[in-house]
């Protein structure tokens, strides 16, 4: 009788992998829904700057600018975290429950942000720089500010738990010195630590530092709001705000780079092994990323000069280990290989190149002498859209397509790949070029409507609409192709 009943015992790792894959797919599907919505908000902003929406109140422009900025930064951070966690699962074991908690916290935060911006018309920008949220001039109500800080607090708790869990997962397998690859510096090659572990360790430490800065901001603001006679130092809060904000954006990029290190070798047929150069580079990044944010405070006369010098030096130096080593290594990896140019590999490669282009523009802007001219022009959104949209977003989207194609077994269609790459490439860089040209012409950023003195900005905004439309077509085709693979993978 015993032979009649066959009990299948699934290995624990498979159940675990299935759970992790499921939560990752939920993150991915959410990102695929939110991405075009947030992109359309960007389109609306450029349409108003084009002069085609005379009925749209400038206050609404700033509300959607806030939602677009905070939304995009948050969206790609959580998408990066989700994809990294599933890639890390090949080596370590993150907790799926924590990912769900982070998901719940993020959704709650998104609802609060939607209420604050679309209903409350909160227009503080993604950096919500103190004391602006508390001085609306009657443009938004106090509850909208409270809603923003509640959203940040809830998402902050979720993301802190998530980052700590992923770092703890690494800690359960590797010693800190191994996780940071220090043994490679002394010539040892064992234990073998893949680059994604080193980059992730650096990234999660950075994320936690940024989130602690956010906690300090929230505490200081809460003390001011609920205490008596306490007024915060605007310069201190600005330092903390950009410590947090710049860190989150920077680390999101490093998530993308970690994906390149992990996934691109699949297509080149060459392994991307850790070596002393990679280890040195990423450990240097861990040090420099703590100070790179200082370039956001060049305009603050009270900031000590030595901090301004530190800001310029760290901004210059950080581009060497993170970007140059990665970009050079990517070219070496691809050159002369039997590269399979599929959608993921093309997107990863273009993402690295977009990072390089945006990085050069960023380094130019981080030069104090240039920054005094460029800082409040459209050059700034130009450079951060370059390394974000055409950099890390392409890296994440490429990796997502790689994962869902692998899970769904739906083959890639060459014609669609070419269409997506062509439209995203032409649309994306055309859209960015209009930002750059307007920046060089001195068109200010954060203007809902351009006055006569900078009317040239209206023309650039109008041309950019064509490119945004092309970009959106490519993005929607990608979302359709990825979404159906995602759903198939989810159902199976």
């Amino acid at each position, binding site marked *: 009788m015993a032979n009649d009943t066959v009990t299948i015992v699934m290995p624990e790792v498979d159940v675990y992998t299935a759970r992790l894959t499921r939560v990752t797919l939920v993150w991915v599907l959410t990102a695929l829904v939110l991405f075009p919505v947030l992109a359309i908000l960007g389109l609306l902003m450029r349409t108003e700057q084009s002069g085609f929406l005379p009925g749209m109140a400038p206050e609404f422009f700033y509300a959607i600018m806030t939602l677009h900025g905070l939304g995009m930064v948050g969206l790609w951070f959580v998408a990066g975290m989700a994809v990294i966690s599933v890639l890390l699962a090949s080596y370590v074991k993150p907790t799926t429950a924590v990912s769900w908690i982070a998901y719940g916290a993020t959704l709650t935060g998104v609802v609060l942000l939607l209420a604050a911006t679309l209903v409350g018309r909160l227009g503080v920008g993604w950096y919500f720089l103190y004391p602006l949220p508390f001085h609306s*001039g009657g443009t938004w109500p106090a509850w909208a500010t409270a809603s923003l800080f509640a959203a940040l607090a809830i998402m902050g708790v979720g993301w802190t738990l998530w980052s*700590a869990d992923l770092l*703890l997962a690494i*800690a359960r397998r590797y*010693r800190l010195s191994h996780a940071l690859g220090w043994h490679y510096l002394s010539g040892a090659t064992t234990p073998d630590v893949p680059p994604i572990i080193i980059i992730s360790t650096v990234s999660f430490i950075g994320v936690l*530092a940024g989130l602690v800065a956010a906690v300090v901001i929230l505490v200081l603001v809460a003390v001011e709001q609920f205490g008596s006679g306490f*007024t915060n130092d605007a310069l201190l809060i600005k*330092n903390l705000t950009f410590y947090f904000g710049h860190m989150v954006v920077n680390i999101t990029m490093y998530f993308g780079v970690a994906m390149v290190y992990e996934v691109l070798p699949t297509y080149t047929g060459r392994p991307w092994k850790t070596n002393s150069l990679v280890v040195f580079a990423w450990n240097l990044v861990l040090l420099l990323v*703590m100070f790179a944010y200082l370039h956001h405070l060049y305009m603050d006369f*009270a900031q000590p000069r030595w901090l301004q010098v530190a800001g310029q030096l760290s901004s210059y130096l950080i581009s060497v280990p993170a970007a140059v080593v990665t970009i050079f290594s990517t070219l070496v990896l691809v050159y002369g290989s039997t590269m399979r140019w599929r959608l993921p590999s093309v997107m990863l490669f273009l993402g690295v190149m977009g990072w390089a282009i945006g990085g050069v523009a960023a380094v130019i802007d981080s030069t104090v002498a240039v920054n005094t001219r460029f800082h409040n022009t459209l050059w700034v959104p130009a450079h951060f859209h370059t390394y974000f949209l055409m950099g890390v977003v392409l890296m994440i989207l490429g990796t997502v397509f790689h994962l869902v194609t692998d899970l769904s077994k739906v083959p890639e269609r060459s014609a669609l790949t070419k269409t997506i790459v062509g439209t995203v490439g032409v649309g994306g860089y055309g859209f960015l070029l209009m930002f750059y040209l307007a920046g060089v012409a001195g068109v200010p950023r954060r203007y809902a409507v351009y006055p006569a003195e900078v009317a040239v900005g209206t023309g650039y905004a109008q041309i950019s609409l064509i490119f945004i439309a092309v970009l959106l077509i490519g993005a929607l085709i990608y979302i359709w192709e990825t979404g159906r693979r995602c759903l198939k993978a989810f159902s199976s």
Partner: protein
Amino acid sequence: MKSAAALLVSTCVITSLTAQSPDPRDAPPSEDRLLHTAVPDIPLTTASGARATLSQIARGKPLVVGFVFTRCPGVCSPFLMSWRTADRALGEKHTYVRLVLSFDPRDTSTDMSNLARHQALDDNDEWTFAVADPKDVRRLADATGFWWAWDESRQQFDHPALLAGIRDGRMVRIFVGGSITTARLDEFVREASGEFVRSYPLPGRVRCRCVRDDLATGRTTLDWGFVLLLVPLAATGVGTLVMFAAGARVRGKE
């Protein structure tokens, strides 16, 4: 459910219909909402009877406008005297145009001429006293954040003491307050002239400063608030060590 929704909607409608527009007297004019807005180039009649527009009076220089009325038994005279005293203390330091404009429709060129004489400014070419059409004064006041309201009980106008700084036809600064010190006027005119002027928070109210910026020497020194900037680094460093120590215990058990 439907009746509850109807009640909510009707409450919102009634609330919005009965809501009073905010009284400008409740708070000083908000400079933030005025900066860089265009100022209407209104026609004026000077104390000498000459006709000129605002831009003709400015002659391409920074323009500082003060609003007064000659029958004012309150702030106007001390305000004007304070401005004049601070201006004299600055000497020849700045080149800017001073315009004293009446917002009272009863005031005439002669009234403004008398006011100029009373302030011993009638022979001073750098000062212009003028009146304008009430509608034009209202347009200029709206653009500069100035307001006035007739107080029936006291039979006079209620209004703030306000200076508006204008450069190239756009608002640059406003100053609100009856007493103008030399230092504040110096800052005001420098900013109206396009110069970058450091601004400082009110002393004694800000806690946890990260640096102290000495106005006299221009030196910046670190303050206790700077320690808070090190919290993220320190907390993460300790947290990372704790996590990897916990991880080592797990590896030890396995």
